[in-house]
């Protein structure tokens, strides 16, 4: 890997978004992900290499450190921010189709339910894994999911629920999705959910945590 990509990897791993950012203290005053990406592009580094050799592997390392409980969520969020700062520079290449995300992941907490901390973590980690995220927020009805499926017909759909009285709403949503798009992949998660429930409602996969969600998504993307 070239020196500049190594530096970008480090900036994302340790959450340095741009030069002005005071975080992390050990990289104070140095270029962040934003400047490093610009420098790399100016030096004719292929945007695909930026994405695949620096950004995604850096976020994979962050995800691994998080799952091994070596860092807390704020550090992971800073890394996600740094990746976002780099993506700003890569935007034109996504627009032109020169580089692509692994796929689109539509995610939401189902209707009647406002618990979103788990869902937000899943979004962040999946995004770091190179997926485009369409986050519909909380209290999301089947109509809203269907609307977004129109917009992103190949997207994988993720449903989150934390209440025993809202997990049942997943069934309606899965049914509605199947009616509209029988081959759509639906991933579900949340504290009261398990494999049996997943099978019962006809969803494709139950992910107990964000890592399992990324593993599943990467498997179907490859």
């Amino acid at each position, binding site marked *: 890997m070239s020196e500049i990509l190594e530096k970008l990897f480090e900036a994302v791993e340790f959450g340095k978004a741009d030069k002005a950012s005071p975080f992390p203290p050990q990289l104070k005053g140095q270029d962040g992900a934003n400047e490093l990406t610009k420098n790399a592009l100016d030096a004719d580094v292929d945007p695909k290499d930026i994405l695949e050799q620096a950004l995604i592997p850096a976020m994979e390392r962050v995800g691994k450190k998080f799952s091994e409980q070596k860092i807390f969520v704020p550090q992971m969020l800073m890394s996600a921010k740094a990746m976002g700062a780099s993506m700003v520079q890569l935007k034109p290449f996504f627009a032109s189709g020169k580089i692509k995300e692994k796929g689109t992941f539509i995610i939401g907490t189902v209707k009647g339910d406002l618990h979103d901390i788990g869902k937000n973590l899943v979004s962040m980690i999946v995004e770091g894994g190179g997926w485009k995220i369409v986050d519909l927020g909380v209290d999301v009805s089947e109509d809203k999911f269907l609307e977004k499926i129109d917009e992103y017909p190949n997207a994988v759909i993720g449903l989150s629920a934390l209440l025993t*009285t809202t997990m049942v709403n997943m069934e309606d949503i899965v049914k509605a999705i199947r009616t509209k798009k029988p081959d759509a992949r639906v991933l579900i998660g949340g504290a009261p959910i398990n494999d049996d429930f997943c099978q019962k409602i006809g969803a494709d996969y139950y992910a107990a945590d964000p890592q399992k969600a990324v593993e599943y998504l990467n498997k179907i993307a490859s």
Partner: protein
Amino acid sequence: MKYKNLIISSPQELMFGKAPSPVKTRRGLIIGGGQVYSELNFTLPTMSINSNTVKRVNEHYREIAEGALERALHLNSKGVVLEFETLLEMTKTPQIGVDIVSIMNEVCEKYYQKHGLASEIRLTPNDLREFERPAKQRTSELIAPMMELFERGMEAGGDLVSIESTGGKEVSDDALMMCDIKAIMFALSVLGVRDMQFLWKKIVGLANKQGKIAAGDSACGFANTAMVLAEKKYIPKVFAALVRVISVVRSIVAMEEGAVGPDKDCGYEGPFLKAITGIPISMEGKTAACAHFSPIGNIASACTDLWSNESVQNIKLLSGMAPTAYMEQLEYDVRLMNVALKGGDQSCQLFQQLMVDSDVYTDPQALVLAPENVIRISKELLKGDSYVANAKNGALATLDIIEEAIASGQMELSEMETAYLPILREDLNSIPDSESEFIDMMLPLMDQSKFILEEYGL
């Protein structure tokens, strides 16, 4: 803040089962009057709530109440509180919630009349306002059904009323994930306090009109969310311990507005409220493992007056239905506490010491709940002239206590945890005492699309 001095100023007097201002209920429970009672909390199994299922929903609650009270009777219980925490549909359509209260009240009355077993219902409507973002804390149309449920639910037999209100949560949700202590201070000691003043005036007014008991609020959405996240190792425990202490200045507003306790089970800020105001409290610990894990299983009961399980689904276990099983667990726990109380001061102190010692140095969140630390922190929570200053002083005292415990070798924390201590201290020290100066400092740093200042009277 209205309170200037502690009602309980000695750790020895911060004791389970005894509160300076006990609360007497309709069927004769004297909460905090020398006895600890069980408070059972329960919820539905996997099912939706709609016009087709509402009959079954009602049956669930009847079954739960019958099963629990029958078991309590069998175990010679001296009294029980049943907490009915509503789910969305039950508050949105108050009639559903009211009917459930009536059903459970019927069961309570039957056991009282037939067997002399005293029980009461704590009605806890969920805060519907969080369904709107940015939240319209004062002007939302969703306030009306909540208030209707309070009012009609009390008429139907809900004697104690509580809520887990959510003022400031739109700021604290992100702040928790970022471990941003300044934003947490803003959420709790500015927005939270102001929303509590607005909401609890109304709740106390309704309760007083009917001669019912305005019990108290819980900073569940803030401090328990922090605790659950810390338990999953998502955020540092030292941060969660500070959030707990800061939440005191927000939850105490219910008492300033006239709430009398027992404060709500999932409000682990209860011990501080008890020390400062003298009200009885409810707590949950090891018995709440059915709902979430915690690092404070034993120490949580050190000065409680009701002992709860947070929430358990009405599902079948090998022994029987889960709420009935939890009733039994709670009853055995309170039996022990009550035997200690009967034995007098020495046996209470000994029993409390065991509960405290078994947890205290295992986690900073347990550390802050040790009676001597509750008293020490509570003193700091009253020193300043504003809620902001009080919260800051309490949090700084908490940091002192954590650092002392580490320095003495009694508590061990990983480097990942201790790295946060100086950052948190620096951030807290940067906060001015005056609310208006603090607001001026924070507004430019925050995403103002997330909250509406006018909805907090600002």
